[in-house]
Structure formats: C-alpha cells, structure tokens
C-alpha cells in the first residue's frame, strides 16, 4: 500500500513535469511536501540524509557556479570573444558558425550550459542581423554544442553534477572518461552542421562592412572585475582538477570561489545574486526529496533487481540499454528529473553487478545518454529552452519540429558514436 502511494505520487509528479501542466517548481515542492506529509521520508531524511534526501553538494555546487557566472556575465567578455571571432572570420557564415559553436562548447565545459547559451545567444542575434542572415541555424547549433561540450566535465551539465555527486566521481574522472569522446563528437558534429545547414551559409560581402563596424572592445567595460572573475574561475577549475590532491568537494570549491569573488568584486552583491536561478535550486531540492521517498520505500532496489534479471547480469547489455533508454527519455522529458531518478538505480546496479571496478561505465552510459539525448528536441535540455526563449524575444520563432529535425539526427549520430566508444573502451580494450 505504502509503495503504491509513493509510486503514484511520483508518477503523477513526473507526468505533470513532463506535460508542463503545472510549473515544475510547484510540482517538485508539492510532491516533496506530500512525501513528508505521509511520512514516507522524515524531516531528518529530507534535510540530513545523503541517500533519502537533498544532496546539498549538488545544490551548493550549482549555486556557487551561478554566482561566479553572474559576475562574469557583467564583464562583457563573451560578447568580446564572439564579435572578435566573427570579425576574424571576415563575415564568412560557416566559419563564424564554427567559431561560435566552439566557443559555446568550451564555455559549456567550464561553466553551466544554460549560462553559456545566455551569454552567446544575444551576441549571435547581433552578428546575424549585421550579416543579413537568419540567426536560427546558429542558435540551434549553439544549443546542441552546449549540450555536447557540457558532457565533457563534471560541472558542464546539471545531470553530470548529479552523477558526479551520487556516483562519487571526480572532475578528473569525467575528463579522463568523457572528454576524449567529446572531442571526437565535436569534430563529427561540426561536419554534421556543415551538411545540415549548408543552404543557410549565404555569404554577403556587402554586409561584412556592417559587422566590421562593431567595436568589440567597448563591451569590456569592467576590466578589473573581469580579471578577478577569470582568476577565480581558473582557481576554481584548478581545484576541481586537483580534487585527488586537495580532497575538497566540488561544492566546497564552488562555494569558496563564489564567496571570494563577491568579496574581491568590491561592491554590493545584488546584481550578481540576481543571476542565481533560485527556482532551479528549489526544483532540485524538491526532486531529491521525492526520489528519496522512492529509494526509502525500496522501489529503486526492486527496479534494480528487475533490471539485473532482464540483462542477465551482462554489463555490456546494461550499458547499451542505459545509453539508449536515457537518450530517448531525456529527449522527451527534462534530463534533470530523469537523472535524479536514475542515479540511485545506477548506484544499486554498480554495487550489484559483477566486476565492480568496471561497472563505473554505467555512470558514463547514464551521463552520455542523458546529456546527448537532450539534443533531440527543443524541450530535451534546459539550454534548448533558453535558446528558444531568446530567439522568440528577438522575433525569431523556432518551431518544435524544426528543432527536432536537426536534433534527432545529431542525437542518433552522437549517441551511436558514444555506444561504440563505450563498447570499445570498456569492453574490447578492458
């Protein structure tokens, strides 16, 4: 009976989140509230237990990075880099697109995806306007590049932050296991957009003078602040990488970085704190409590046992299944709630399946499926939703099917390559 109610609340909440009938923050809060009301989890579980409650490492890592990025956003650095690259490319559309895609991918690996597209999309609108081109191919390419680039690191994509914390994986683990693949994926991806958008690359020499008229140096109005923010970001990234030596959790590093940056910024913190997406943090907290109830009721363990029976304990089958199921589901629902639910399940699988050393590959399967699957549709990843919003406010509506036409191709390509990579690296060569 108890299990049935827990599962019902969970399924109902998930349906409401996926269909967007009710705002996802309300659903997460109400769902978490119901789990507490019926005592499926105690307040102790919800607020103090790592297994059954809120993973504060995730919340504070997100929070810290949001603050750092909030400062960086005020400095105009991204606008500067983007315009400078476009001018270097002399207004050639494909070259500009490659530049913007690479900037987006690298920035998404170091920062959060959503932030990256918030930084790069407006300047893209400006560049496209100057060149007399539709910004839509560039914006779609950037959204997908942010999801691919973000796959490379622990902080690159919110699902990775979750996976890192719940799977006990470090920044280096992500770099060693996922970054090499992401480099290959980016090369293939750039070839793919060259083919897919070949008709949009109309070079208009007479418009180039308008692009060259932009003065990118004028965007850097806060150089001292920019230098401080970049130094702190560099130190934070170094501390992530040196986790094996320093032994500070990523959340602690991000929080420290945010605190020090606000301190050395030398002004009131309000404009920077406004950049913190409180609703995302609350959504995460609510989700954790709901998933915690599911774990506590033993539902996740039963699912894990069923998954092991279904795969006959074969890790390769489990990995391939996990990659593709994750990709499909992440295309249809936001990948954050999906990974929040799957993380405890994968945790059980990693413990239960034979050869526990090699079963970490299950975490990579989950990360790849969820991150890359988000590319398939306009609602698959938060970065896509943000891009669509900026495009619409700029007067360019991107339709669901238009995005999916390109998104599905890229997803099939990248997830297919990822499957081959996982198979060769962790099974053939292992």
């Amino acid at each position: 009976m108890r299990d049935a109610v827990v599962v019902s609340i969970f399924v109902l909440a998930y349906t409401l989140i996926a269909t967007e009938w009710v705002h996802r923050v309300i659903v997460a809060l109400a769902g978490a509230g119901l789990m507490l009301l019926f005592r499926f989890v105690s307040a102790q579980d919800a607020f103090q237990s790592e297994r059954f409650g809120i993973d504060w490492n995730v919340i504070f890592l997100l929070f810290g990075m949001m603050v750092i990025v909030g400062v960086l956003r005020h400095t105009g650095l991204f606008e500067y880099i983007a315009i400078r690259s476009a001018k270097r490319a002399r207004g050639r559309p494909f070259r500009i697109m490659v530049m913007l895609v690479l900037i987006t991918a690298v920035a998404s690996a170091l920062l959060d995806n959503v932030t990256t597209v918030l930084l790069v999309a407006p300047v893209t609108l400006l560049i496209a306007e100057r060149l007399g081109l539709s910004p839509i191919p560039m914006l779609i390419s950037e959204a997908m590049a942010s999801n691919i680039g973000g796959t490379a690191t622990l902080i690159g994509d919110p699902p990775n932050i979750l996976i890192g914390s719940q799977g006990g994986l470090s920044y280096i683990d992500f770099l060693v296991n996922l970054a090499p693949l992401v480099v290959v994926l980016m090369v293939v991806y750039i070839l793919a957009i060259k083919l897919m958008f070949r008709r949009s690359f109309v070079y208009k020499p007479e418009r180039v003078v308008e692009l060259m008229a932009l003065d990118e140096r004028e965007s850097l109005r806060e150089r001292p602040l920019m230098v401080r923010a970049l130094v702190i970001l560099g130190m934070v990234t170094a501390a992530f990488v040196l986790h094996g030596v320093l032994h500070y959790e990523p959340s602690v590093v991000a929080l420290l970085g945010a605190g020090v940056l606000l301190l050395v910024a030398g002004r009131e913190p309000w404009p920077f704190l406004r950049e913190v997406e409180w609703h995302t943090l609350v959504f995460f907290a609510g989700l954790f409590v709901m998933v915690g109830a599911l774990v506590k009721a033993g539902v996740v363990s039963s699912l894990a046992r069923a998954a092991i029976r279904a795969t006959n304990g074969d890790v390769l089958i489990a990995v391939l299944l996990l990659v593709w199921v994750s990709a499909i589901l992440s295309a249809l629902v936001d990948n954050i709630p999906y990974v929040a639910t799957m993380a405890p399940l994968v945790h059980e699988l990693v413990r239960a399946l034979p050869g526990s050393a090699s079963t970490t590959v299950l975490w990579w399967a989950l990360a790849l499926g969820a991150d890359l699957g988000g590319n398939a549709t306009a609602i698959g990843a938060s970065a896509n939703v943000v891009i669509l919003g900026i495009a619409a406010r700029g007067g360019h509506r991107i339709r669901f099917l238009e995005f999916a036409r390109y998104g599905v191709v890229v997803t099939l390509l990248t997830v297919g390559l990822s499957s081959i990579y996982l198979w060769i690296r962790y099974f053939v060569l292992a």
Partner: protein
Amino acid sequence: MKARDVMISPPIVGPDAPATEAARLLADPEVRGLLVVDADERLAGVLTDAMLLRFLLPPYVAEAEPLAGVLEEEAADALWRRLEGKRASDLLPEDGAENAEVNSEATLIEVASAMVEADVPMVAVREDDRVVGAITLNSLLKQLLTP
C-alpha cells in the same frame, strides 16, 4: 479626493493604430503616456514613453547589456526602423494592462501605490468596464504637494 477628481484626458490610440503614430505622440515632452483603448472603450494597455524606448532598443541589447557599447554611433539612427509595420498594441509589454489602472473611486494613496507598484508614470482610470481617463505622475504630485 478621489481618482476621478484629478484625472486628465490623455491622448488615446486604438490597438491597431500605426506604432509610428503612437511614437510621434509620445515624443511630445508634455506626454508621458497614451491610453491604448479598443472600439468597446476597453483598455488594451497604458503605453508609456519608457515602454516605447524599451521597444526601440534591439532585443539583444536588452538580453546582454554589454552589447550596448559595441554598436557604433550611427546604429542609433536606425532604431526607428523597428517601428515599421508595427501596431500600437505591439509596443505594450505582454502583461501591460494588469496593474496600470485604478477605479474612479480610488483614493490618491491607492493611485500612488498603483503607480509605484507598476512602475509607470501614468495609470488609466476605469469606471465599470470603461476607461474614462488617466492620472499622470505630474498631476498626482501636484495634487499631493499642495498644502
């Protein structure tokens, strides 16, 4: 004193009026806002000078403020083009009509509060479902500061 006692008759445009006409009216230094009113005398929104300015600004500058500096001096000359083919109602923010009106029976404190809350220099005055006038920041201040 009630809202009806201090209200004035500001310029009125229909929702389908050309945006350029609304802009021309707002360019008058005496005019802080227009009422956008449909054929049934229902309020579509209060259009203020600040809203017009926000509309003229390219959307990417509104999203990323550092881009304002990047544009060359002459870019300002082309801003008016953003009004081409637009209607007065296109200039209104999406949630425009929500707070920018008061009942004709409202006290001046209520008027002041509505103005501060909606952050606009003009509110419409409504009687039943019809718009009967408006109160500008100036007319309200003049009244409030008279001993």
